[in-house]
């Protein structure tokens, strides 16, 4: 009797596990439905996308606004992270993927030689947000940021911070690092900035960094913002939109021409104007030379296969991504992102014609 009960309990557990497994299978198998768009002006059907959570608020706003352009078209953008977006695109689950980094070399094999087009969609600053009452105009250099995030500078009144903030009343509060618990494009681009700009940076660049053990980890940009808000003496890297939404204070960071620049959409767009654009439209917006550029600026792309099996999907992709590069750019500033400079925008628009060809 007792044995049978336990067997039954075990069976129930197993069934639950299987149900979860089945649900996971079915949810990842999104439908690449292609409705029958009869004319080129009115399209109908569904576009599925996933990837970068950095893009998520923008995509949500753009999908909403796009309804007035193409009322019969449905666009779904699930987050999940750039890595998930790229693997979903590779396995054909989605029609386009949001990614904050170009496809890394160890992933190219997943795309089986099929050409992937990069459409840059916007730029955004990563803020150095902090919680220090009485200090409002903190200035930081890349070298000091590197030492703070490597655990070498542990107090706010460290001479290295004092020397670039003459006049500020820096307390002896210990510094608490606020970092991401999840792997993230924000972490990848923040560490890329340190790798590029600070010679003393030793922790490398990746979507996950082995931070000092004393760091407090939060999930997502919102989670890091929450840690900073609730911990006096905390400093962390948070994207501009979330930092603004949480009402955080952020530092001005020295750029490569020696100027201290505060994060803003304008300063991020300035960084975009001097990037070295590769033929495939990939670039890195961190550490740009323009005097008004904010140095920790990053970017996001939408990735699309050049070859499309259905003519309707091609039309829908052109319409939606064309919208993101056109009227969609007007939505960016209020959301805390920076529009692309016109030279990148025009190249991205020109590339639209390659989809489906």
């Amino acid at each position, binding site marked *: 009797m007792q044995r049978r009960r336990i067997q039954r309990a075990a069976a129930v557990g197993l069934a639950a596990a299987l149900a979860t497994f089945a649900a996971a299978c079915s949810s990842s198998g999104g439908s690449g439905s292609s409705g029958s768009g009869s004319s080129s002006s009115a399209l109908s059907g569904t576009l599925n996308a996933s990837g970068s959570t950095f893009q998520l608020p923008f995509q949500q706003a753009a999908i909403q606004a796009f309804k007035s352009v193409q009322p019969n078209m449905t666009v779904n953008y699930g987050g999940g992270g750039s890595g998930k977006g790229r693997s979903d695109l590779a396995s054909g689950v989605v029609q386009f993927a949001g990614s904050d980094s170009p496809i890394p070399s160890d992933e190219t094999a997943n795309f089986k030689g099929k050409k992937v087009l990069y459409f840059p969609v916007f730029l955004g600053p990563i803020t150095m947000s902090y919680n220090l009452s009485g200090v409002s105009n903190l200035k930081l250099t890349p070298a000091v940021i590197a030492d703070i995030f490597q655990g070498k500078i542990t107090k706010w009144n460290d001479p290295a911070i004092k020397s670039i903030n003459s006049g500020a009343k820096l307390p002896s509060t210990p510094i608490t690092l606020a970092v991401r618990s999840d792997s993230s494009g924000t972490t990848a681009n923040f560490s890329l900035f340190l790798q590029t700009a600070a010679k003393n940076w030793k922790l490398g660049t990746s979507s*996950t960094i082995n931070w000092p053990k004393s760091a407090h980890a939060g999930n997502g940009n919102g989670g890091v913002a929450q840690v900073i808000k609730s911990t006096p003496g905390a400093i962390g890297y948070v994207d501009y939109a979330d930092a603004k939404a949480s009402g955080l204070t952020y530092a001005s960071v020295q750029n490569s021409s020696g100027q201290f620049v505060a994060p803003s959409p304008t300063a991020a767009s300035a960084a975009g104007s001097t990037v070295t654009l590769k033929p495939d439209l990939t670039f890195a917006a961190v550490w740009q030379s323009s005097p008004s550029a904010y140095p920790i600026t990053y970017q996001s792309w939408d990735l699309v296969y050049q070859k499309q099996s259905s003519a309707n999907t091609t039309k829908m992709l052109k319409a939606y991504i064309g919208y993101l590069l056109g009227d969609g750019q007007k939505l960016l500033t209020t959301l805390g992102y920076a529009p692309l400079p016109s030279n990148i925008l025009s190249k991205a628009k020109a590339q639209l014609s390659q989809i489906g060809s």
Partner: protein
Amino acid sequence: MSAATQADQAAPGAIPAGGLIGRRGLADRSFQWLALAAGLLVLVILVLIAASTTQQAASWFSAEGWGIFGTVWDPAANKFGATPFIYGTAITGIIALVMAVPVSVAIALLLTEVVPFRLARPIVYVVDLLAVVPSVVWGLWGILVFAPWIQHIYASIGSAVNGIPVLGSLFGPPTSGASFFTAGIILAFMITPIVTSLSREVIATVPAVDREGAYALGATRWEMIRGVVWPHSQGGVVGAVLLGLGRAMGETIAAALVIGSSPSITSHLFATGYNMPAVIANQFGESTGVFKAGLMGLGVLLFAFTIIVNVLARGAVERSARRKRGA
């Protein structure tokens, strides 16, 4: 009407005995096949999960070799050692068991031996309600409410034991509210219902004759529990505890939110740590190449550990059942 009545009356006799058995035989056989197929399906799915995840993790095993049991997990440096996560899984599991098992067994004894059936019902409902709370709710409550609150307790314990040899290194100064210990406490809440209900069912199978026999010999209630209930249900309770451990090991979202997300091997229970399911959930989204394979590999290891724990649980239950049959 009369014809129908006649037919009804005639029916039992009209069907030849052989035909009846034949039909029942067919039904029996098809049911047997159906049940067998269902059982095999489960097995096949399990084998397929194991095979496909192992295959996805292959590049981790080949790139790291025995390095998979290394102590450093640093994707930026291409080092993927699983030991900090295995350690974290073990530590949080042990903390959860140390806290949940005495409470669960005590509740089970309370329900079966102390309170009358009428009162036991509502208590069972309340304990089972704990199992209904979704794990993400446990996690969010843990990180937003429980961790900030318990951080002060950690801090005062930390300063009290500062300098004392063993206690100092176990309960040293905390780094934040999110830690091995917080994760262990949350997991303890989460496994209490399953351990309680399984223990209760095991204890309820102790024959009434045995209990009454003990009372007849003049045993007190405590002596009866120690002398009759415990020896009878020991194996089953151990099985229940191991099933609870299996649950604690695999618990993902709650642990991911409260464990602190820092791969470390330390004796400090109040330090931030990491466990296997949490790192998979946190880092999978932006992982590539060997990094992704490593996370898959952690899944394979976790799968293997859970199977071992569950097999041990079954073994404990079966041994106790055999012993009872022998007695």
